[in-house]
């Protein structure tokens, strides 16, 4: 049995942010996450560090929070944020009146804007639709959500916090009407551990209600699915938004070598049973094409979808629900932090921890807005020059990841999960989406003795099925060609068809 002060459930941005905040205030804690970091909405969003402009008209409070957190994160998370700047582009037919309201609302929220002529905007982003009427600059950035989680967790671990990924909460221990801890299952061994704590923080996003119910309470939530597609080129160096009221397919975000375009907004019930429908891909691709015409001729390498855990509201239109957050004190030793968004994860963590330390009777104030994330310098480190040094040993040709790098990650994590390697090395993130290199990474894990051959093949099968789920809605053109080649390898050459 483990004893600690606080247990955090959920390894998304909010959970990891809370862990770092507690660590900096000297509060002992454990974080448990059923998957890898950023397993839920954090890892399935478009990686935008909002300027707040998108919310300025409908949700001024959220807009103000965004712009203030935007400034903080640029300072404290430099290695996770790419200061791209953003444009809101107005296409022929988009309301000029909305543009006026938009500019006024941005000003009121403290978001700096600049109106550009079409030709000035095209100078900045040459692939923009030349028919645009005008564009407005905003301080949008792109952010790496996975790296952000890892760095927050790094501080926690460094200061003695416990981080258990691939551990699923199966029960909340209740004593005398209070939550006294959690029972977690190690997902690779099915072994159950008990963690006793004074306070439990439920930061499990879309799974929040399920967790709150284990504690004898509940949280009112609305789940909304948002689907995105990834192009295999970086078609813009700035975030491109559509200057019109929020709607499907109104954003393109550059991220490393690719672009993410999204999103849709469709109410869902079960966060574990969501899929991208081919027509969602068509909607997003068609809309993205209107802003950047070359998007239509670019290969789409994958589609994915995440669930936004929104606060319950009377409205049935999920876009009009506030993207604000709420901290619920269940008065039974459990706090739930609900709603919000990636851009304001730090603020949500701060407010949650404020409430928790008050209950614990600890006097310590939040320092996460001033102290830069620890461990960033090491993370900067896998430049192309290093990757090219060992070209013979490259196992992932798309992202130039070599065998040594994979072995280092396998040995330092002792992991059984291929996803852990992919997140930490970018293996399999390129156009083939792991179609060729995952087999190799598993072969390496097999040779290091981390896995038996049977486990390795089972993992490969699971990976191929998961990969196919992401690729299937966007199969045409070159991606379809490649998919058929991948099928012929696994089902043909390796004989992994159903009969197994």
């Amino acid at each position: 049995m483990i004893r600690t002060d606080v247990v955090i459930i959920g390894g998304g941005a909010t959970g990891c942010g809370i862990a770092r905040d507690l660590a900096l205030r000297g509060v002992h804690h454990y974080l448990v996450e059923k998957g890898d970091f950023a397993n839920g909405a954090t890892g399935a969003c478009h990686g935008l560090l909002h300027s707040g402009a998108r919310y300025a008209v409908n949700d001024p409070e959220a807009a103000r929070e965004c712009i203030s957190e935007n400034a903080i994160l640029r300072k404290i998370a430099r290695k996770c944020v790419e200061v791209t700047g953003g444009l809101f582009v107005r296409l022929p037919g988009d309301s000029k009146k909305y543009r006026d309201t938009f500019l006024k609302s941005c000003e009121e929220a403290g978001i700096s804007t600049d109106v550009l002529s079409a030709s000035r905007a095209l100078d900045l982003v040459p692939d923009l639709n030349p028919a645009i009427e005008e564009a407005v600059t905003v301080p949008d950035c792109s952010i790496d959500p996975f790296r952000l989680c890892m760095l927050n967790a790094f501080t926690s671990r460094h200061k003695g916090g416990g981080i258990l990924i691939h551990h699923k909460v199966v029960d909340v221990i209740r004593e005398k009407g209070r939550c006294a801890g959690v029972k977690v299952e190690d997902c690779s061994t099915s072994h159950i551990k008990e963690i006793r704590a004074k306070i439990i923080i439920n930061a499990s996003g879309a799974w929040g209600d399920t967790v709150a119910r284990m504690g004898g309470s509940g949280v009112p939530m609305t789940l909304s699915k948002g689907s995105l597609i990834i192009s295999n080129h970086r078609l813009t160096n700035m975030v491109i938004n559509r200057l019109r009221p929020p709607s499907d397919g109104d954003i393109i975000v550059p991220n490393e070598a690719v672009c993410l375009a999204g999103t849709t907004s469709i109410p869902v019930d079960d966060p574990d049973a969501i899929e991208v429908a081919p027509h969602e891909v068509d909607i997003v691709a068609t809309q993205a094409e209107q802003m950047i015409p070359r998007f239509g001729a670019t290969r789409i390498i994958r589609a994915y979808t995440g669930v936004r855990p929104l606060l319950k509201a009377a409205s049935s239109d999920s876009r009009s629900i506030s993207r604000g957050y709420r901290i619920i004190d269940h008065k039974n030793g459990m706090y739930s932090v609900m709603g919000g968004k990636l851009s304001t994860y730090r603020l949500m963590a701060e407010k949650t921890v404020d409430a928790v330390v008050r209950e614990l009777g600890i006097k310590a104030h939040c320092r996460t807005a001033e102290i830069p994330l620890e461990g960033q310098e090491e993370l900067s480190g896998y430049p192309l020059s290093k990757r090219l040094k060992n070209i013979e040993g490259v196992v992932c040709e798309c992202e130039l990841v070599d065998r040594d790098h994979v072995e280092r990650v396998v040995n330092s994590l002792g992991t059984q999960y291929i996803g852990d390697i992919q997140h930490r090395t970018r293996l399999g993130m390129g156009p083939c989406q792991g179609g060729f290199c995952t087999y190799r990474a598993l072969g390496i894990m097999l040779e290091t003795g981390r896995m038996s051959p049977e486990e390795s093949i089972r993992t490969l099968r699971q990976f191929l099925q998961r990969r196919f789920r992401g690729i299937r809605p966007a199969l045409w053109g070159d991606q379809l060609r490649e998919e058929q080649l991948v099928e012929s390898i696994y089902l043909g050459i390796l004989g992994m068809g159903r009969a197994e």
Partner: protein
Amino acid sequence: MSVYEYDAVIIGGGASGLTASLYLSSHGYKTALISKGDPVCCLSTGCIDVLGGSDTPLDLPEGHPYTLVGRETLTEALSFFMEIMAHAGLPYVGEPGRNRRIITPIGTTKNTGLVPCTMAEADPAEAGHLHVVSFKGIKDFYPSYITSRIRNSAFSVFDAKVGTTLGIATRFEDNAFLDAFISWLHDLEIPHDRIAVPAVLGLEDPVSVMEKISSATGRQVFEIPTLPPSIPGMRLFRALKRSLQAKGGHLYWGREVSSFECQAGRIEAVTLSTTGRPSRVEGKVFILSTGSFVSGGLLASRDRVKETVFGLPVFVPGERKDWFNADFFAAGHAIEKAGIEVDDTFRPKFSKMNNLFACGSILARSEVLKYQCGHGLAISTGMAAAKMCEGMLS
């Protein structure tokens, strides 16, 4: 513009186009084969799958292009192929009516029709002990997958100082390297009955490499086909190409058809794009063997599928949302049915080009993965279409 005249012009240099060209050249017709590059065949195992999914590979599935070929022509095409390959120094073994089993790189079993003789001893079910040899740094071959599945097996690793299949195969062309490999093997004192090696035993003459190793060790030796780029696939393609050249077939390699001329229901010529002068290639008959999606004969966009050379009407199985099953491993995604529908003379239906024929995986309903019929379909429809051309030419 340079102008060239032929009896038959074949577009697409994979197994089906090569077979059609070989058949027509052997029968004295002046033949040209146009290919935009090395074919998908080079990525294959080199084995000739006839109907890998079936215990009775000569029971041809209804509605499949095989039924247009017929059992007799299928058998004839396979023996034509075996004759050519034996002559090219890369003999194949097997019989059309019975599938053989070979070991895959992960130790599973693959059913196939004919295999190159370097895989003749590759049946995993065969009794006796097995020793697998791997190579240091090779990226797509992990022998413990095999030894975990096959009882009484072990493996050892040789350092060839290079880690790619193509690199190792090239080294096996060198006698000094082969001798060093054999002496290393000899020192291992392998107690097993058979020795398995990933398919890297040379590019040109794997048979003599295999025989040398076999006689030096006193063990049967066989190859396991690897992932692309696949040496047995390359050997197969090179041997067919060489045989065609020997028979006087003309090759336009690295060339793409940029346009075609059609008059009074006949294709007169195709134009090949080049950086210099374009070439006009005239023919009495034309065969389309550009393959399916992977090789670029078909191209899918978000809402339709087009045939890339002549813009022929394509059979498309429903809307995009129905093209793929949810299960990656379930054989038979609907999109595999996409292709050109032909009549029983292998001429595209709904087309006004009367001297155009089609063969290979571009044919509608060929479902190569589902039926595991890749090269078998290519070779047999290649020959069948060539025979139809012959009928028109004579």
